[in-house]
């Protein structure tokens, strides 16, 4: 039981695909300009991850070693096509906002990475847990970025205005450079927390970034 929760939790924090392993950065930066886009992208990616992990885990005994990467990509592309049409059916606005990035889930290295490194070597149950954890970690990272960017760039969260009318939005946060800055900022924050924990010095006098 302990091991199972661990398989799930490591994706959320210790091996977070975005903040720790730096995988799948393109969609993270590109669609995190609002919370709703970030959430939709996170869920779509999680769905593809779960679907492909299940199939890869079930079929791994039958896939010849030489063509395994190609097979994984075809499996992933199939699920992405499903998600693509699904989102188009649910909300056309969302589909337009996410643009080509839904189809680009195919080349999200995180998904191929999990298929190769985990799902192909582990039984179905464990692969599912791993996929769920990684998907949740990815969604969490997207939300972290999306909320900061929407809050600062638009003064709102999920479209609801948070700050009063006096707030001057920072448009730069919604534009491309904002994505880089916010992700860089989060990474700095995590590096700082990590350093503080290893140094076991709660006052952290040396750890200031600037």
């Amino acid at each position: 039981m302990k091991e199972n929760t661990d398989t799930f939790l490591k994706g959320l924090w210790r091996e977070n695909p975005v903040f720790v392993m730096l995988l799948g950065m393109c969609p993270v930066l590109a669609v995190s300009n609002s919370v709703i886009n970030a959430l939709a992208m996170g869920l779509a990616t999680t769905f593809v991850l779960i679907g492909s992990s299940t199939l890869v885990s079930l079929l791994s005994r039958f896939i010849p070693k030489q063509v395994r990467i190609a097979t994984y990509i075809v499996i992933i592309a199939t699920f992405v096509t499903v998600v693509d049409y699904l989102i188009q059916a649910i909300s056309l606005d969302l589909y337009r906002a996410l643009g080509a990035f839904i189809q680009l889930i195919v080349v999200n290295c995180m998904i191929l990475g999990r298929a190769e490194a985990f799902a192909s070597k582990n039984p179905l149950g464990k692969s599912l847990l791993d996929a769920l954890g990684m998907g949740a970690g990815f969604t969490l990272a997207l939300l972290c970025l999306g909320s900061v960017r929407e809050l600062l760039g638009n003064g709102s969260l999920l479209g609801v205005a948070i700050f009063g009318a006096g707030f001057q939005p920072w448009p730069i946060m919604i534009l491309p450079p904002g994505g880089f800055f916010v992700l860089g900022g989060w990474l700095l924050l995590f590096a700082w927390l990590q350093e503080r924990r290893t140094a076991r010095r709660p006052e952290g006098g040396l750890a200031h970034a600037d």
Partner: protein
Amino acid sequence: MPTDSLPFIFLNACLINNFVLSTFLGICPFLGVSGKLQTASRMGLAVMFVMLVASTCAYGINFVLVAFEVEYLRLICYIAVIASAVQLVEMLMKKYSPALFRSLGIYLPLITTNCAILGLALFQTFREYDFLQCLAYALGAGAGFSLALIIMAGLREKLELADMPSLARGAAVSLMLAGVLSLAFMGFAGLGG
């Protein structure tokens, strides 16, 4: 300049909507291979070549898919073509430049999962470019990718010598740097008119 003329398409893909810095395609190699100037420029060339091949093939394949009305297979076909193109480049490089092959390491097969290339193929389909426009678009995108990669590598080589807090070393400072570059590239938006 009309928006569908060849020079405009080239400039648009290269500067105004730079693939890396304003559409966020190909971030992984951008952060991963930009440590050394020489590796970066060669990686840029390899990507540009794969882009040209992939763009040409995608154009042909889309023609066939539309003729048979099986557009839902587009994604699967494109990714298969890109994977083969990368394999081709890999074999050529291994034969003619083993040193380069070693220095690119894992990032060479990873061109397959470089979203810039699939993105290029998808965008040209959405925008319904004709064959010459596709070529101009692929060249522009490749040049833009190389440009971003080379600038980044140059900056990071300088940064190696700078005195930085240990905390900021690595990915965090690269991202901040990319943010500043992206800010600079926003200046080209005026070119679009």
